[in-house]
């Protein structure tokens, strides 16, 4: 049994979950769309984009990046539940490669997030957002967003395996909000007090949001600083760095189940 095949079978298990209980993912999508509408139309009129540009055009890529960040929560929850209920132990007592369980999670969550991203793209186009860059650049933007989700996956797997309990999931659910808002996902860092703006600019989420804006041909809200020059580079570097830290930590947490 190859690790890949086992990983694919575990992925299919999660895909079957969505068929059985479609309301979870559907509510997740509705939540993203609700946030989009709240910020786009309720708050949007009061928000200025530094450097000019339409707020909806600015907001959409930020919302996409935000939903990639929020994915950490569903990954950690799914991983923690399996570990707590003994399903992970059942997998571990089977003759399958030790990476299969994580691979299954990766397959399922990346599929979920890809669908989510597509829905947001379509939804965004429906509310007046436009891609003005070329198609290759737009595809690269989508890839960068998925790369961010990929790095969040490893953080989620690590948290789920390491802290197993429901408390950890709640902590993640609360923490994603300040991390999400303390970025340029929704408002430009340049409208924030200097020190806060600096933190927001260095948030990995900001790199992805800004890079996606550049590549989609949307206003970036950035007129200077590191994000103005190196957004795409940072949008690659941050997720790669996070993955380089949390993939080994996840592997270690999985091995430590044996302790």
């Amino acid at each position, binding site marked *: 049994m190859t690790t890949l095949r086992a990983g694919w079978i575990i992925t299919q298990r999660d895909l079957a979950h969505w068929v059985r209980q479609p309301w979870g993912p559907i509510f997740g999508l509705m939540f993203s769309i609700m946030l989009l509408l709240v910020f786009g139309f309720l708050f949007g009129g009061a928000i200025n984009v530094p450097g000019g540009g339409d707020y909806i055009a600015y907001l959409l890529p930020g919302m996409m990046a935000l939903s990639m960040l929020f994915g950490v929560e569903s990954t950690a929850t799914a991983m923690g539940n399996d570990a707590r209920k003994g*399903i992970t132990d059942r*997998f571990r007592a089977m*003759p399958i490669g030790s990476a299969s369980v994580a691979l299954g999670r990766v397959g399922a969550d990346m599929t979920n997030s890809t669908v989510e991203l597509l829905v947001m793209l379509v939804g965004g186009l429906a509310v007046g957002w436009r891609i003005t860059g070329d198609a290759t650049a737009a595809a690269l933007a989508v890839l960068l967003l998925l790369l961010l989700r990929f790095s969040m996956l490893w953080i989620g797997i690590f948290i789920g395996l390491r802290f197993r309990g429901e408390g950890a999931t709640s902590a993640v659910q609360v923490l994603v909000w300040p991390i999400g808002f303390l970025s340029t996902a929704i408002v430009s860092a340049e409208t924030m007090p200097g020190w806060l703006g600096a933190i927001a600019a260095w948030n990995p989420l900001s790199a992805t949001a800004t890079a996606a804006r550049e590549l989609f041909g949307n206003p970036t809200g950035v007129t200077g600083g590191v994000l103005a020059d190196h957004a795409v580079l940072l949008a690659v570097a941050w997720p790669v760095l996070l993955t380089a830290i949390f993939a080994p930590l996840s592997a270690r947490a999985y091995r430590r189940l*044996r302790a």
Partner: protein
Amino acid sequence: MDTLFAEGLRKRYGDLDALDGFDLHVPAGVIHGLLGPNGAGKTTAVKALTTLIDLDAGTARVAGFDVRGQARQVRASIGLVGQNPAVDEILGGRQNLVMFGRLYGLGKAAAQARADELLDLFELTGAAERAVSTYSGGMRRRLDIAAGLVLTPAVLFLDEPTTGLDPRARNEVWTSIRETAARGTTVLLTTQYLDEADQLASEISVMNHGRVIAEGSPEALKRRIGGDRVTVTLRGPLDEAARALGGVTDEETRSVTVEVTEGLAAIVRTLDALDAGIEDLQLRRPTLDEVFLTLTEKEPVT
């Protein structure tokens, strides 16, 4: 050769010796009971034998394979049914079994055929497509055991399979376990329930503080703590009778229970001399409960 073999297993968690020189020898094809109170180390022993944890010391072989060096072969030879039903609650029963079958390397068609076979065997065919979250406790357990049998493993590990089940569900699970053993699978069953071990197991290892403190058939274990018990129900003075016989009183049933050491006649004579008024007299073998309490009380509590 023993199907399950463990010698000198040690596993330390902080200050606690979860396994402290655990030994086990189980031949093929039997149900072996691992009996002990909460915290005796039963689950740790199962986890060690199913390759889920690393051992600090000792040697263990399952179906002839070393749990350390040949973990993969061990995993291909066992089924594990843990303390909590480890089945996917969102999926249907059949979907669960097909998934586990495919993870064990069966092709799609073979996994489906095996799933149907097991559903039939465990009388779950009617609920096959329903989400497991709608199953009763007993059904869930049966599915859980079925999932451990997808491969027809050489050894099935059952860790407290009836904890939290009502008596009817418990009976259903017992039947499933007996049938599993009858088909040739060696079963290691951990339990805190003495009657469960008594009912199912041909051999029992009594465990406390991380090691086996007694071993044998239920009958042999009962013999081990001495002779038969006699319970006499009296009209006359209970305490006096108990003192004269060296027995234990039960006020509610107005009875005295005493071990038969010098024959029944001697007991009757003593009671007659006291004019105790024997209403009823029952002779019985000691229960496993008594064996268990006697054995674990002898153990120094550390």
